Structure formats: C-alpha cells, structure tokens
C-alpha cells in the first residue's frame, strides 16, 4: 500500500459515519453474547480513530472493558491520535502497529487471531495487486467464530489521484473467487449496496465459521486463494481500463455535451490514471 496524498482520514467527534455504526452494531452483538469475557478487535487502517469517536456513548463501560483493541495504520501520526482516543475508553488492552497494510500479518504476533476485524473506507486506497492478499490474510487471522467487516465507497467524491474504488458487483466477484479457491464455494456472503448523498457504498461481512475449513487446511490454500483473487482483480482492472479508455476517446472526439459529462470527463481521467498505475507493466 502506498499512501494517497489526496486522501484524508476523517476525525469528527460529533459525527458517527454509517459504516462505523454498522461495524459497531456487529461488535455490540458480539460483546452481548452471554459468557463473552473478551473480544479481540483489529481496526485495520484505523486512520485517526473516527470509529472510536463516540464509542463512550455507543458501548457501555462494561462492554468496552471486554475489548482488546488493536489499531493498525500506515500513518504513525494517525495511529498516535487513535491511541490517544482509545486510552480513555477503558479497553481491556490496547495495541498499536504502524506499517504497510500489505504486511500487517507480519507485524502482528503470529499466533494472535481476532474476533472482529474492521476495514472501513480503505479498500480504494489499497494497491489492487495486493488486495487479494490483504483479504486472505485478514480471513486467516480470524478466530473460529470471527468476523471480517469491510466497507468502502463505489466512487470517491471528489476523486483522489491514484485511488481505485470498486463497485459492489466487482467486490462480490473478487470475494467469491477467493472463497472458491479456499474451498468455501458454499459460502456466498451478501454484499450490500448503500446509497449516500454523493456516492454509493458497499459492505460485506465474512464469518470465519461459514468457510467450513480448518485453520491448517486454510493455511495450505492461502497462496492459491491469493493467486486466484489477484487474477480476478487483474481481469477486472483490464476490462475497466479498456472501457475507460474508450469513454475518454469518445469524449476526446465529441467533447462533453452536458455538465454531467464534463464531470464524467474529470472522473474518467482520474480513473484512467489510477487503473494505468495499478496495472503497471501488465498493460
């Protein structure tokens, strides 16, 4: 993962983003399970800790005291800010790691698995060539009953240079491809579409127990799953680049006829760069 300079992590104490609300609702259910004494949560790409912004109101002190919170981000300043927020929330424990998201699994203790992993508003910033590995690594880090919650936007407004947002349908194809390669073709998690004022978002929650494979078997299939997912991603990128190029070609020839099409032109130019950059020498 390389940082995208246009991207800014949100930090607003008075604002709970709907995607964070969704993640915290899942966490709330897990913390409410009778007998649950400890829940280990990995907040991948935690940014400036926006998901914690109102956690003192969202979850009771008792619930928060069951949480082992692990924050992970590429940006050390952001991580520090997240930790500062987390320190006053009364978590059972706090851990923070700073590093490339692509390497997150190498920067965490090898035997540590998580009940809940969140990855919100980040997939578009991730290098597509490493996205399958990120997803597979995250799945392999779940406890037997763990959940991976992912949320991102279909379109970034305003566009960010180098960002590759995915549509709900594309993500579904990629996730299903990875599940097939892991031997979990019976598992077809819902990938939801959410309408926002300026864009659409998608989400998916992957439950480790529904994969139906033991950890050892999963370890053996990791490479295959990453390769299959990466191939699916490369195919999707190539198709998108071809469509994007044709759309820009038509706009070059005929011009933008409406204000909407003028916006399209800008967005297509951003996308063309992002896709070209992502595909690199494969073009």
């Amino acid at each position, binding site marked *: 993962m390389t940082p995208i300079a246009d991207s800014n992590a949100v930090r607003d104490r008075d604002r709970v983003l709907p995607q964070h609300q969704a993640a915290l609702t899942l966490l709330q259910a897990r913390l409410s399970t009778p007998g649950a004494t400890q829940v280990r949560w990995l907040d991948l790409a935690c940014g400036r800790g926006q998901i914690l912004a109102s956690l003192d109101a969202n979850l009771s002190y008792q619930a928060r005291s069951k949480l082992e919170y692990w924050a992970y981000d590429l940006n050390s300043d952001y991580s520090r800010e997240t930790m500062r927020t987390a320190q006053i929330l009364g978590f059972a424990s706090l851990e923070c790691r700073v590093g490339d998201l692509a390497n997150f699994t190498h920067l965490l203790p090898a035997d540590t698995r998580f009940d809940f992993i969140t990855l919100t508003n980040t997939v578009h910033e991730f290098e597509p060539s490493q996205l399958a590995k990120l997803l597979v690594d995250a799945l392999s880090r779940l406890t037997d009953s763990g959940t991976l919650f992912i949320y991102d936007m279909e379109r970034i407004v305003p566009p960010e240079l180098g960002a590759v947002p995915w*549509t*709900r*349908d*594309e993500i579904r*194809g990629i996730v299903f491809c990875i599940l097939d390669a892991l031997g979990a073709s019976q598992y077809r998690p819902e990938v939801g*579409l959410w*309408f926002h004022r300026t864009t659409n978002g998608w989400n998916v929650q992957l439950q480790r127990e529904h994969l139906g494979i033991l950890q050892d078997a999963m370890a053996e299939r990791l490479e295959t799953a990453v390769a299959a997912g990466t191939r699916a991603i490369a195919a*999707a990128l190539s*198709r*998108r680049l071809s*469509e*994007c190029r*044709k*759309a820009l*070609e*038509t*706009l070059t*020839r*005929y*011009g*933008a*006829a*409406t204000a*909407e*099409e003028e916006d*399209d032109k800008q*967005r*297509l130019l951003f996308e063309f760069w992002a896709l070209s950059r992502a595909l690199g020498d494969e073009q």
Partner: protein
Amino acid sequence: MKIFVAHTARDRDFVANLSGALREVGHEVIDPFSAVFGSSLVSEVSASIRSADAVVAILTSPNPNVFYELGLAAGANVPTLLAASTGSAVPADVMAVPFVQIGGEVARDVQTIVRRVGELTRTSPLSTATFDSAESALQAAAEQPAVLEAMSPTDFERLVMEFFKEQGYDVIAEAPTRDAGVDFALKSPSDGSTILVEVKKLSAQSRVSVDTVRRLQSAVSVEGASFGVLVTTSGYTAAAVAMAIDAPILLRTVRDLVHVGSNKTILESPVPSNDH
C-alpha cells in the same frame, strides 16, 4: 392539496415549521431536502413539481435551484406562491405571481403562507387518463411530454418493464436488478439469454451521458449478460452514442420503443443501430 416547497438549505427550519402547519390543515408536503428521491434526483424533483397542486417558493436568497424549480412550475402551469423576505430580489418575470412577504416572525409568516396556499387552485390539472396497455401509455408519453414529465422515475421504470412483458420478454423474477446496478433484467424469448435494462427518465432537454453507457457495459460484463439496453425519455450525447458502438449495448428512446414495439425482435440485435 399536494404542495411542493422550493427552498434553500438555509431555510430548512422555517420550512419545517411551514410543512407542519400545511400538514395540519390536510395538505401533503413535498420538501426536496427531506424527501428520499433515490438516484434520479433531478427527474424526481421535476416529476414532483409537475404533479403538485401548488408550489411555494421561498426566495430569501437568489438560489439557482429554487429559480429552476420555479421555472419548472411555470412551465407546467402549476399555481405558485412566492414567499420572499424584505429586500429580497424577486425576478421581474415572476413579479405578477402571488406573493407573500416574510417579515421574520415565523409563526405569523407560516400562517400567512398557509392561508394564501388555500387560495391557490390548479387551473389545468394534468390528465389522469388510464391506459389499457403499457404500450399505449408509452405511446401517449411519447406524444405528450407533459404526461411523461409528471411521471416519477419509478413509475416510468415499471411502465417500461410492463412494456417488455407485453412484447413477450420475461422479466427475471430473481432479477439482478439493483444487484447488477441496473433497473431490471429480461430473458430473451429466442435464446433465453439475460438482457440488462437501465431506464433513465430525464427531462426532455437532458441527454444520457457517456458514463451511463460505460456503467451499463460494465454491469453486462460483470454479470455475464448477453447485452444491455438503455431506455430514456430524452436522448443521448454524441459521446454516449459513440461509446455504445461495437459494445453490447443498445440505446433506445421511448419513441424507438413504441415505433417498433410490434416488432418482437426489438432487442435481439447484438449491435446497436445508434441512429439517435
């Protein structure tokens, strides 16, 4: 009466009070800021205005959206009441339209508007004619723009879906619809292949853009459909038409549908004619 209230974000609080008072006396209120319009906002706002019994335009600042909505109301012959604060510029073209001055005392201003709205009456209500088939409804819509403009995008989408059913196409029950980012899917009667359909209800002056064609093409590819069909009430930009060339996309207007509707092969061509 159905009242559309055109206003800026700045007047939200005032309009909340006004809406409450209008509802208390039995009116239905459409507030573009609180209504859930889905993705075709412009079209739905336009349809809401055209189907309204009256429009109240709050002119506390020269906001282009409010003026546009005022223009739509004038074009659709919808009775209108202007409410402007002291010193606000009222465009010369609407100086003769019923007017209320907002003095700043909210309760009194609201009651004045409610009373004046009651005095407004629709002079030429839109036709509420019913049709015996989707084809005849589309035919009327193609010939009478007012019928089309007053229709909500969802109603228009349903009408197009019914039209295809009448033409012998199966609307796939478990349709990818939103799943594929399109409005609905058809099964071809000739070979059973899947056809994705995206319906764009736009104002007559609008044009479907190149990116809409690209998104449908992408959905066709991701879903493995045989091709996609765009149906619009308006037309297509030159870039959009060029984008569809050599792509598995057909571009159709309402007029295209009703003029060749009796021909069951309307959607069987894998390559669009692109003669729009």
